[in-house]
Structures are given as C-alpha cells and as structure tokens.
C-alpha cells in the first residue's frame, strides 16, 4: 500500500526532451491511468518509476521515500511489459517463481510452490504451469505476466499497455478481469495506455499526457465532461468531438454561437452566459459531442437544414456525417438511421451540453 509521487520529473534522450517536468500524486490503492498517444512519453515515465531508466531531473517517491536513486530491485515495484517479457526458456511455473528466487528475496520465508500455485489458481492458469511461453496464447501470456507480478506482492504495479496486443474481444474480457483484480488488490496501479476507453473504464483517475507534458489530471467524469482543452476533448469519444470554429454574437437578450459562415447558430449554455457576455472572446471553437446533436424532421426554431447525409450503420447505433453550410459534423444516433421519408432533415443541437474553447485551445469555464 503505497502512494507514488513524481516531482517535476524530466527525461532527456540526447537533445530530445521526452518527459517535461511531470508532477503527479498517486494515492495509495489508486488505479491511476496515464493516457496519451504513441511517443507521448508514457512508457518513459513508467520506466523511470521502475528504475529501468535514469531520471534527467526531478524526484520520484514511493511511500515518501525517494526511489529514483535506488536500484531497481530495491524499489519493490512490479511491471507488466507491453509484450509480456516472459522468459522463453523457462516454464510458466519457473517464470512466476523467478522473482521469488532473486538473491535479495532469499531471506524472506516464502513457500514458492504454494505461492505460485495460489496465484495461478486465482488467474485460472493452474493447468499451464508446465508449459513454455511459446505454447501459450496472447491472453494466457498476459495472465502469466500478471501472475509473475502478483507473486511478489509489490508496493506498486506498473502496467505498460498490457492489453494492446490482444484482439478486441479478449481486450474487453481482460479489462473486466483487471477491474475485478483491482478491487481485491488494494495496491496502487499505474497503468499506461493510448486507448481512451480502457482509461475511462479502469481508472480512478486519469492523467492525460501529450508531448511529455501533463495536460490534465482528473477522474473519468472530469476528463470527459470537463476537458481542460481541445486536446483532451478530442482524445475521448469515438467519433471525435466536433470542433466548430466560429464566434460569439450578442443578439439583444440572447447570446449565441455562430459558425464562420453563419449557417449554424445556437444559444450558449446558461452557465456560460455571464462569462461570455462580460469577457467576450471574438473567436471561439464550439465542441459538440456527436451524442449531443441529432437529426430531426420537425425542427425547433433556428435549427439549420443539413446536406450530404452519409450514414454508417454500426450495430447498435449509427454514424451520420452531415454538412451545415461549410461545417462538417459527425452524429451518433439511433440504429434506425436518419428519420424516415424524403423530408428535409434539420440539426438539433443540445446547446446546454456544448463546450467552448478559446483561440489557444483552452476551455472557457464559468468564472
């Protein structure tokens, strides 16, 4: 049970700054996800915590004690690698027993056989103990890697995109199992991924990383509904949030958003009214989630007509791509697709749910 803190940690590879003064506080027993695109620096951070990489600047502490100056073996963190890193020349049993046989752990009285058997049972790989990694499937290898990390009862679990090499179905299944495990573990987990759905489903809190910098840290709700900027907003959601360039107009009592060409106009949310009224930014981007807009045949006043409706059925929902004036939008709607008939279709925006971003990409919040 240990909390992990990173204090202004940086990592340089030659002249490349891969990690830029990252500071994080991870609570004990928290499932913490670091989310970011490839190359964002996530794996470097994990490796620095594990002691596999040297830190260029800053400090890392586990349970209050500095670990960036200690040897990997002393840190008491376990890591699951992206391609599992199982020892190919050893059986599953030997792979899982390996951490327990290290010299530094010899002293502790642990019955290796029992411990491995118990963990294997929990992960349902008891029957595979005599096999070699080459004979296992992806999902099985993943569990062995998990088992190898579990036998040590470490203070911190580090997971480097462990699910990315599994096929979609297996990935969902493993996600459920990780969630179950998370409850029973009680240890801090630092989980790195580029898949936002994994992040939303597993995390207690998420840190969004981009170009080596922390962009936002928050709960899944916070990062989805209250993204700090367009980067975070674009990261979550499939299809991506619709970002429409435009400006704020005052029409008498009403304050509205208008797209560049004026084709798309709708009122701003009440909560932002005063903020946008007083400090009126000329240009803004409106973030319209594909789920916050729909097509109707019977439009409310002011709803613009749409053109070029392209429908992509996708099982339990359907994607529609439409145009309003010069603006392209993606809409996620009911499986029935566009409303029946040859009637004209109109865009109905749930104006209260729209997010607004200033020209530098930061979200405009109520003051």
């Amino acid at each position, binding site marked *: 049970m240990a909390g992990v803190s990173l204090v202004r940690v940086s990592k340089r590879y030659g002249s490349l700054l891969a990690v830029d003064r990252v500071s994080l506080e991870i609570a004990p027993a928290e499932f913490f996800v670091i989310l970011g695109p490839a190359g964002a620096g996530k794996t470097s951070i994990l490796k620095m915590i594990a002691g596999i990489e040297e830190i260029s600047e800053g400090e890392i502490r586990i349970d209050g004690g500095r670990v960036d100056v*200690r040897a990997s073996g002393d840190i008491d963190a376990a890591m699951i690698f992206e391609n599992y890193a199982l020892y190919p020349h050893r059986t599953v049993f030997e792979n899982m027993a390996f951490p327990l046989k290290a010299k530094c752990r010899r002293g502790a009285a642990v019955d290796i056989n029992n411990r491995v058997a118990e963990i294997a049972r929990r992960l349902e790989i008891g029957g595979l103990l005599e096999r070699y990694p080459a004979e296992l499937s992806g999902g099985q290898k993943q569990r062995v890697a998990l088992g190898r990390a579990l036998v040590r009862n470490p203070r911190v679990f580090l997971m480097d995109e462990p699910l990315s090499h599994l096929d979609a179905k297996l990935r969902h299944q493993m996600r459920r199992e990780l969630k179950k495990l998370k409850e029973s573990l009680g240890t801090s987990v630092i989980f790195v991924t580029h898949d936002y759905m994994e992040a939303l489903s597993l995390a207690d809190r998420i840190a969004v990383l981009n170009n080596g910098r922390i962009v936002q840290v928050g709960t899944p709700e916070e990062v989805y509904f209250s993204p700090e900027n367009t980067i975070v907003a674009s990261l979550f959601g499939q299809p991506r949030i619709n970002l429409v360039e435009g400006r704020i107009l005052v029409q008498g009592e009403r304050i509205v958003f208008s797209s560049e060409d004026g084709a798309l106009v709708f009122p701003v949310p009440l909560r932002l009214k005063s903020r946008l009224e007083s400090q009126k930014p000329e240009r803004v981007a409106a973030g319209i989630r594909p789920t916050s807009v729909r097509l109707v045949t019977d439009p409310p006043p002011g709803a613009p007509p749409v053109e070029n409706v392209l429908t992509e059925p996708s099982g339990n929902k359907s994607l529609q791509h439409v145009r309003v004036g010069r603006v392209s939008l993606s809409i996620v709607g009911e499986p029935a697709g566009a409303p029946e008939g040859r009637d004209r279709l109109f865009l109905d925006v749930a104006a209260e749910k729209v997010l607004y971003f200033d020209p530098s990409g930061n979200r405009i919040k109520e003051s």
Partner: protein
Amino acid sequence: MPLKSRPSRPSTDSLFILPALVLTIGILYPFFLSVYYSLTDYRLGSAAVHFIGLRNYIGLFQDPAFWKSLGLTVGYTIASLILQLGLGLAGALLLNNDVKGIQIARSLIILPLMMPPVIAALMWKIMMAPNGVLNALLGLKEFGWLGTGATALPSLLVIDSWIYTPFVTVILLAGLRSLPQEPYEAARLDGGSWWFVFRKLTLPMLKPFIFVAALFRTIDCLKTFDIVYATTKGGPGDSTMLLQVKAYFASFRHYSMGSALSMMLVLWLVVFVMSRILVKFWLESSKSALGK
C-alpha cells in the same frame, strides 16, 4: 537538486570486459613495438638497436623489389576480387533455387572453405605437378604450373579462388535469400525480363552484401601468406613474392626485422585505407538498399 544516479556495482560491471581488455592490451603492445622497430635498424641476434628514423621506409620506397612486390600484391587482390565476386555471384544465383537436393549442394559447396589454406594449397600442388592430374585432364605433357614464372601467380589465383569463392557465395546467397519478395512479384506482373529484373532490382539490393564480401576478400588477399609459402615460397624468381611473404623472408632469412616491419606497416596502411573505402561503400549501399 543534486542529481544522484542509481547504485550499480562498478566492480562487477567492469569485470565483464576486463579479461578481454587485458588480452587486447597484451596484443596492442607488440603492435606499438612494431612501429618502434620499424624505425630502427634492429636485426635479430644483434644486441645493438639504433634509432634511424624513416631510413627503413626511404630505403623501402627506393627498392624496386618492394614496388614489384606491392604491385603483385595489389594486382593479385584485384584479380581475385573480380574473379571471385563474379563466380561467387553466379554460384549464389544458382544455389538460390529451391530445387530438390539444394540443401546438400549448399552444404557441400563450402568444403573448400573449411580446410586450412595450407592443406588446400598442398592439394593443388600435388595436382599441378608436371606429372599431375591437372595436366592429364588438360592433355598437357609435363608442364609445371607453379614452377613457371608466367603461370605461377595465376595458378595461385586459381587456388585462392578455389578456397574462397564459396565464401563469397555463402554471403551473397544469404543476401539473396533476405531480399523482399514483393518487388519481384510486381516486376513479374509488369513482365520484365530476367536480365532487367536482375540489373534493376537484385543488384542494387545486393550491393551491401557484395561490399561485405569484397571487404573481407580484399583484406585477406592483401595479406596472403599461407598459400604462397606452401607452394612457391615467392618463386620462381620473385614472381609470386607477395608482400607478407617477402616480409617473412626478410625477417627470418635475412634477419632484418626493421625493414621487414616497415614493409608490414605500409601493407597495414594499404589494408586500412582499402577497408575504410569499402566500409564506406558498404554503409552507403546499405542505406540506399533500404530506401533511405
């Protein structure tokens, strides 16, 4: 904040490389001694050693025998390269077909390479004797291939090629087998002739391997010793007196170590320069073969 680095165990870490390093220094010391001796008038058995600067080298460059030897060595190397790269490529192309029994052929072709060059040279010496089987097969009577001035060096070339063409073949075959198949499938669809495909596709992609083979063959040919010593010992006359052979006799027949070493250091320089050039070609061709 002061930056501390993680504790490793420098003592055990350096142990990894220490033994090899010790051996290396043990070998480097003689190298430096060579350079020193080449600047002296050291003769084996004489107690007096005097520093004479570059006199050995000057003497060397004024000695027509040296230039002849150098010329023979370089010429021999170039001829070897041409012959062995050509034949080796042909062999590799032939062995690159998955016909029945090809595995056995590939294993057999390397046998000449596996035996000591001295032994191979002795074998050919027996075959090239005036009453040897070579003459019998060619229908010649009593011709001494290794004993006749004009044919001695070419005969050594034949022996050298017999031993080392398989080397080139093995390397080029590995290269051929590592080439991606897609460009060939595309070319076949486009209907290119075999020669066209070979020139435009195979050869450029094979270049790195050709240069690797050329590198090692150049180095070894410039240093030829075993084959010559086992057969002609530099003769007849000095028609096969390649540089390293000459240096051997200078040291252990005439005992003039100083001048022998100056010869060797010149040779070393030649080897070094040729290697640098070939390595450069190799690196360039590697990059372009990968399309960078």
